[in-house]
């Protein structure tokens, strides 16, 4: 199958010393949904900005729809649709005016443009709101308008940067259904970034887990999860007993990949349910008090933990603290 998107060794730094992309490479087959999954600040949006020709990488190369992003950015722009993290629609303009303006930017005009705009408003359920200012739309409606604008010129490749961030659960499910429909019925290639594990799991046929500007692991959600072989045990510890706890589990049969993150101990076990009593006994023998023990079945959270070496939620909030 041909690659609709291929990126090789992308690098980009922001002064003074933020390394947003550190040798990121991906390849996306035509007509598939590819997910870039990672915590805030992992480099997902920078990847989209580079592939969408909004910015240039410091190093590396990329082709989108067979066109080189550095050699022919305008050619790439014609072939892609971009739905950014922020609402891209002009708030004071109506839905219809936003779509018309967007069409003109892609060189579509006249009767052709009017027809497409009307179809698109109907398709995204904005027909009744077409002549109201976009700022009066609900979050879900604005997002649908954003996507309608991204699709108006019928792009070969669609970039969706965190499409459901900030949406309520109902609107999120609607958005997922729309994205699935685009991939199934229109065979469109979609690059989706998200920091929701659930979203990546449901929508992406392949995904890459991104951390600190590079891909740490790539595969289908199923492959990634089955690669885990077994369950993850999380033990929350009392105070500074981490070192002892790690030693206690290190020699335990049936338990592997023991790692400590703050006051939380992570370990993997082929059969987590059977391993828990042994884990508790081993901790008890060393006088280590466990505050809570959690057993996690294979999930993308666990895949992230295994490959990025830290828990997803923790990486996410760390980044947010840095940003704030």
């Amino acid at each position, binding site marked *: 199958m041909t690659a609709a998107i291929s990126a090789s060794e992308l690098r980009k730094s922001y002064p003074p010393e933020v390394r947003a992309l550190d040798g990121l490479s991906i390849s996306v087959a035509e007509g598939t949904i590819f997910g870039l999954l990672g915590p805030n600040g992992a480099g997902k949006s920078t990847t989209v*900005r580079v592939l*969408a*020709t*909004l*910015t*240039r990488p410091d190093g590396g190369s990329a082709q989108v729809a067979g066109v080189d992003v550095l050699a022919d950015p*305008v050619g790439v*722009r*014609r072939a*892609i649709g*971009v739905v*950014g*993290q*922020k*609402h*891209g*629609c*002009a*708030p*004071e*303009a109506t839905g219809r*005016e936003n779509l*018309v*303006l*967007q069409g*003109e*930017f*892609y*060189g579509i*005009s006249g009767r052709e443009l009017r027809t497409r705009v009307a179809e698109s408003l109907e398709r995204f359920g904005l027909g009744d709101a077409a002549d109201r*200012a976009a700022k009066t739309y609900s979050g879900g409606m604005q997002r649908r308008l954003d996507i309608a*604008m991204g699709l108006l010129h019928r792009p070969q490749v669609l970039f969706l940067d965190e499409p459901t961030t900030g949406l309520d659960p109902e609107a999120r499910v609607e958005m997922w259904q729309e994205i699935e429909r685009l991939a199934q019925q229109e065979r469109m290639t979609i690059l989706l970034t998200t920091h929701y594990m659930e979203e990546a799991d449901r929508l992406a046929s392949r995904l890459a887990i991104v951390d600190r500007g590079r891909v740490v692991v790539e595969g289908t959600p199923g492959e990634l999860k089955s690669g885990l072989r077994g369950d993850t045990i999380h033990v929350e510890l009392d105070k500074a007993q981490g070192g002892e706890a790690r030693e206690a589990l290190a020699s335990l049969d049936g338990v592997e990949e023991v790692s400590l993150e703050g006051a939380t101990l992570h370990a993997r076990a082929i059969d987590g349910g059977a391993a828990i009593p042994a884990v508790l006994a081993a901790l008890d023998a060393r006088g280590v008090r466990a505050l809570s023990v959690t057993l996690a079945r294979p999930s993308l959270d666990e895949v992230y933990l295994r490959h990025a070496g830290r828990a997803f939620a923790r990486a996410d909030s760390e980044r947010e603290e840095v940003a704030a």
Partner: protein
Amino acid sequence: MTAARQTWQVTLRGLRVFVRQPAYVALTLAQPLIWLLLFGALFKAITQIPGFHGGSYIDFLTPGIVVMLAVSSAGWTGMGFIDDIAGGVMDRELASPVWRGALNAGSVIYAALVVALQTVLIVLLALALGANYVGGVGGVLLLILVAALLAAAFASLSNGVALLARQREALIGAVSFVILPLTFLSSALMQESLVPGWIRTVAKFNPVNWAVVAGRSAAMQHIDWGLVASRIGLLVAVALLSATLATRAFARYQRSL
């Protein structure tokens, strides 16, 4: 052709915002009237300064107020870009194959149209206050043209600053910093022969003064064609130069993304 269509669509977006906000329209239209009345009252006495030969005070001040207003009105054009950057509109537009020049030119034409409308109002109010347009309708049209050209030059610069700085505060600072010195270093409010020599020298290179001199000659005096044509030529050159700079600023903006 496509470039012209895209430019017009961007202008249209601005015009729609303008007409859909009645309070904004009222303020934009009231501002020139207040300026003319206030400055008119304040500077009424300048006609009594020995050596002043500008005719009645309203005749002298009207082109000056027009030009001052053109600069200050167009100076804020970049605010639209700053809002678009913050709202994600700019990134969406830049991810499309739209000609970058259209994004600038569209908003610049909108700014120039608003200034033209404000100029018409000033001209009419001044007429009611007894202004004598020696240059007739043609002279007034030239005054409007001059104001629009100056507005275009400053609107592009404002857009350029907005793209480079991306902060409201920076644009507010730059505009406030520039407007009054440029106005005072011209003959907008005071006859050239009555200002210190160094100001007269600086004014020769000040686009604001080119607009004042050309507008005054065309509308209020027996037109000096050589003067008016040369100043209009210079203003066209400045407007084109600043439009080029603003269009280039998009690339600088994208490099920082």
